[in-house]
């Protein structure tokens, strides 16, 4: 479980986060929604221990993320918005390096790296340099690198930016598996359809403040009566993405 209590953070005169609190239950996916500059990444960075809050705290399974070497950081996996990989190194060397930072070594490190490569569906490209990968492959490896130490909470900061539908679907499948395995996911995005598809609970943020914190149904219920979804018999039109995937297939395109 992740608890965020009264987080505040400013950069100079700019208030990035103001008194933000929420709770993410174990094995659930919590979506952080907001426009650009709303403060989503700052919140995620604070939870990851990358930034220190001015006030408030984040607790992972009761342990505070309050220092560079806090044990709570071992419970958190972090997928930054920008690709966080050494382009000059191979996929496996990247994973071995990041595993080493969490105290993994030897056969255990090799096994975890191999497993993470499998999750990213990149086992056959393990020895290739990351700079030769497509955008989708890099995004999948970016996620895999956060899983090596088997975190209890996974922070994903807009992890599908710039990927093709096949890779996005593969990422969604992976996240679903992780959640079913008991991992708590914090997912920031400004793609509403992604939030609807993945999240059990959604926190809407703007100007660094929480505007809403509820389930999807709860959020719908907040709408004025005339704007709420109503049950009616309609012909469901397929999405363009479903047409695209039907025509191009779900198979990953890593060539």
């Amino acid at each position, binding site marked *: 479980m992740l608890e965020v209590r009264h987080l505040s953070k400013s*950069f100079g005169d700019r208030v*990035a986060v103001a008194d933000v609190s929420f709770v993410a239950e174990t094995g659930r996916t919590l979506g952080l929604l907001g426009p*650009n*500059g709303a*403060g989503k*990444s*700052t919140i995620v*960075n604070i939870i*990851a*221990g*990358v*930034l*220190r809050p001015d006030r408030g705290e984040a607790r992972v399974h009761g342990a505070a993320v309050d220092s*560079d*070497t*806090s*044990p709570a*950081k*071992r419970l*958190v996996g*972090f997928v*930054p*918005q*920008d*690709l*966080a*990989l*050494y382009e*000059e*190194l191979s996929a496996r*060397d990247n994973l*071995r*390096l*990041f595993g*080493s*930072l*969490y*105290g993994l*070594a030897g056969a255990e490190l090799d096994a975890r790296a191999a497993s993470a490569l499998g999750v990213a569906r990149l086992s056959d490209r393990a020895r290739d340099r990351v700079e030769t990968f497509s955008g989708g492959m890099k995004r999948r490896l*970016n996620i895999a*690198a*956060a899983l090596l130490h088997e975190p209890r909470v996974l922070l994903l900061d807009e992890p599908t930016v710039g990927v093709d539908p096949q890779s996005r679907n593969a990422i969604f499948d992976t996240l679903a598996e992780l959640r079913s395995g008991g991992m708590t996911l914090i997912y920031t995005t400004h793609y509403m359809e992604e939030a609807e598809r993945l999240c059990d609970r959604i926190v809407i943020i703007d100007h660094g403040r929480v505007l809403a914190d509820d389930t999807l149904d709860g959020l719908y219920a907040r709408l004025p009566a005339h704007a709420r979804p109503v049950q009616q018999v309609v012909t469901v039109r397929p999405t363009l993405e479903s047409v695209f995937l039907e025509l191009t297939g779900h198979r990953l395109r890593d060539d």
Partner: protein
Amino acid sequence: MTHRLAAMRALVAADLQIFFRDRRSVILNLVTPLAIAGLFGMVFGGGGSAPAGRLAIAVVDQDGSAISRAVAAGLAAEKTLAVSSLDEPAARDLVLKGKVRAAVVLPPGFGEAAGRAFLRSTDRPRVAVLYDPSQAATLAMVQGLLTQHVFTAVTGELFSGDGGTRLIDESLASLDTQGTDAAVTADLRELLTRARSLNERNRSQGGAGTASGGGLSVPFEVGDEPVTSGSTPYNAYAHATAGMGVQFILMMGIEAGVGLLLLRRRGLWLRLKAAPLARGTLLTARVVSAALMSLVMLAVLYGGATLLLGVRVDGSLAGFLGIAVAFALTTAAFGLLIAALGGTPEATRGLAIFATLVMVLLGGGWVPSFLFPAWLQQASLALPTSWAIGGFEAMTWRGLGLAEALPTIGALLAFTTVFLVIAVWRFRWDVASR
């Protein structure tokens, strides 16, 4: 502690792997300094066996007297000079174009006036030395040689030349009109009379008639001895290797610092900070990897210089290694300082390269520092480059011992400490989120 060390080892290994996988970087950092050191060393005298180049000067003899001809001949006979005989406009033009370093202009009446001035307190003739201001150091050398040959030529003419008796007779005749003390006048008369007698004897013996023979000469010979370690002669490549090594290793330090600035722009920085590692671990890993790269560069550079340029560690090997390690740490700390104080990577790189080139120049990496003004030579001691270059020279061709290396090692470690303290103090850890 084990986790911290393992993490640091992994970070250092990644840095080294990335560095050595970039072929361009490897060539730039390992081969180029050796090539430039070879070039510089060759220009500044090579391995010590090659004869030094002659200094090109011109002599303009507007007098044509026995004395002026003797002076010109004396200068032409100097091993260190390559003398051209020209008229003044041509000589002035060549000096202006940098084709000759200096031109000596012996004016009309020079021989007569110089001989007269030697015997009496009459006006001395003025010899113009036209020189290239960009080669001002050669002026003193030309003036010294000119003085020597004028002295020899004038005394030679007085004691054995045809014109010498006339000049002596003029001086004897003028003694009574000078109004000096009678006793002094008597002594001078006797001296000049004996000089005239010597002149006549010399001429009657057939060795006279020229200004070059029978004159006074410099009463000593110079036995020059280059002071080195004793086992090998001075090797200009050793100086050039030290200078270029220091320069290129500092350049690598700049790249390490700029690399850290670039890293902060990327998600990688966030991932590294998200790991349960102390800030000190992250920075130390960076320092260690940069220091190791510096040591590899030094090893390759001096290995290559040993094989190809004949550079040897004739002094203390322990001292040499100590200076190498200390300078490697200084370089790593310098890189961290750049990352701490730098703005954008692009602007920081340009500024840091400029600062490094100035430091290497003032440290004597390009030209010997004795050419600098005295105050600048003192001021350059505030630069790590000056210490490092001097230290490497001391342990190579100068052949000095460990005791001489210790002050250099201490100074470099002091620079390292100062750089690190400022870097850690000023390093911006937090990066504003989007």
